[in-house]
């Protein structure tokens, strides 16, 4: 088990209930893997466990090192997380919010150095947020806010990016803008991306590989063409969908039940 992320026999229980039942997964450096699955399948739990935020059995390795052997600050330099619904601190300026991402580099009881400020300046410029640096986070639009969340994660300087439903609150234009940006950053900075997504078509468009999770177990893994099949989706999502050939993989179109006469 090598790779940027290596997960082996991962089991997680929440409140005494088993949520992940033995997951094996490897994500190579620079690869984008998207986890899909119905609600309650354990997608977010998998990301939180990889981020070292949940007690677990089995093994999670980051660049070969078991997360249990890493200190919190070391972990935060290796892996950055954008949660599904990040907390928006009231009254906090975008600059101060993105600076929070430098926490793992600031000595306990210390404050930001010029190096930290420069790193944040670069991230803000890269994400076209420089003009919004003094604005309060809560006054930004949904798309701008998502870029600010991403900026804080990038400021951590980690090579592994965990994105939990990064586009769930965005319209189609902003969804594509954010995912294009992640893809550019992945290429620029050789980031490894592990994401969860509900929009199967978008997931298939951007991911190198996909993992279908159902009831806490991996039921399918491979290229978007291998995973986004009508049979698999029908079996595990319980919905009706039709695969339409797209440029990078199938696009999933929901189909309603026959109309009652």
């Amino acid at each position, binding site marked *: 088990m090598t790779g940027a992320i290596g997960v082996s026999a991962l089991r997680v229980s929440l409140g005494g209930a088993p949520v992940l039942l033995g997951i094996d997964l490897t994500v190579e450096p620079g690869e984008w893997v998207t986890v899909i699955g119905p609600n309650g399948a354990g997608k977010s739990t998998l990301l*939180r466990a990889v*981020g*070292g*935020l949940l007690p677990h059995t089995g093994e999670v390795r980051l660049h070969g090192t078991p997360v249990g052997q890493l200190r*919190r*600050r070391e*972990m*935060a*330099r290796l892996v*950055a*997380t954008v*949660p599904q619904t*990040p*907390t928006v*601190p*009231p*009254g*906090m*300026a975008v*600059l*101060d919010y993105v*600076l*929070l*991402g430098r*926490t*793992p580099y*600031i000595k306990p*009881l*210390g*404050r*930001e150095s*010029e190096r930290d*400020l*420069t790193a944040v*300046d*670069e991230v*803000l*410029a*890269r*994400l*076209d947020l*420089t003009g919004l*640096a*003094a604005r*309060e986070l809560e006054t930004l639009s949904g798309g701008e806010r998502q870029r600010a969340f991403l900026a804080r994660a990038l400021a*951590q300087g980690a090579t592994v990016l965990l994105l939990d439903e990064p586009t769930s609150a965005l319209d189609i234009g902003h969804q594509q*803008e954010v995912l*294009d*940006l992640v893809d*550019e950053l992945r290429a620029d900075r050789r980031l490894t991306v592990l994401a969860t997504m509900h929009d199967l078509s978008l997931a298939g468009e951007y991911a190198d590989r996909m993992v279908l999770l159902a009831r806490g177990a991996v039921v399918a893994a491979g290229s978007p063409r291998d995973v986004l099949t009508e049979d698999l989706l029908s079996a595990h999502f319980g919905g009706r969908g039709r695969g339409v050939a797209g440029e990078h993989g199938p696009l999933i179109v929901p189909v309603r039940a026959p109309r009652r006469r």
Partner: protein
Amino acid sequence: MTALMPKSREQRPRPARLTAGWLAAGVGAVAVAAVLGLAIGPVALNPLAVAAEVLNLLPGVSIHSGLTPQEAAIVTQLRLPRVALGLLVGSMLALAGGCYQGVFRNPLADPYLLGVAAGAGLGATAAVALGVATGIEGGARASGLVPAFAFAGALLGVFLAYGLGAAGAKVRTPTTLLLAGVAVVAFLTAIQTYILQRNLETIREVYTFILGSLATSGWSEVRLALPYAAVAAVVVLAHRRELDVFSVGDEEAASLGLHPQRSRLLLLIAASLGTAAAVAVSGLIGFVGIIVPHMIRLIAGTSYRLILPLSMFFGGAFLVLSDLLARTILPPTEVPIGVVTAFLGAPFFVLVLRSAKRVGL
């Protein structure tokens, strides 16, 4: 998406931090409040002469203040310890309040939240009852029993809240700690009420403690509270950046490399220790710990890097000015200082609240 070239640092917005301007404002507020507190009283003194007399106390400084020996004694022996204690207690209550609000992410948190006040009240009541029962000359407050018992009671209250806050759950969350605090307050208050009912002659002295006062303050009270207040201030101020990180919640703070539970425990112990020391020497002075940090928040922004140090400066100045009013508004009697803090603070706070562009609570 355009990648803009970063401008020079000077052209960019600066991160929230204590600037020289804010520092000067804080020091200025403390200086003005201290000089007024020293100059105004039954014997009115020239503020400039008072300032010179105080500077004269500094090693290596020799200025002729122009005050008579009696006036100099009024400044240095009567009013200075009271002003010093006011600065100490006010700054500690405001700092602890700001710290609690950050740790609990709750704008209604105040320094008495986790049983400090109830424990101190019980300790003071027990001391007064003991003083009356054993016939201590001059009363329990003058004998030093009240501050000692109040301090012990305040610590007891906090440690009970911490202990219960983890029971039934493996970790202490803000919610379990708050609930434990509610239970401890109810329990300790019940015991205090029982002791009061059994010793009705103690009610007046206990009531004085509960309303808070700096009337009996001297250098001994300053010496008692100062070491705890200093430790509390150093620990809390050193963690002011972490309190900003806490504003995104425990899990995100952990993903940024912090240990939220460990830091929270350390901060609450430090803030409670400072509060216990303040309560032990001045009684229960309300309003300072909740209003001062909010005023700073409304005026200077929501970063704890600004809120905590500025709360110390303005909390100290606010309490000294409140005490000045408390002892001069209805001479020769003193109005309870808690009444003045609420009377002064509430309208001013509403004014700031209504005129502020942002609340950030």
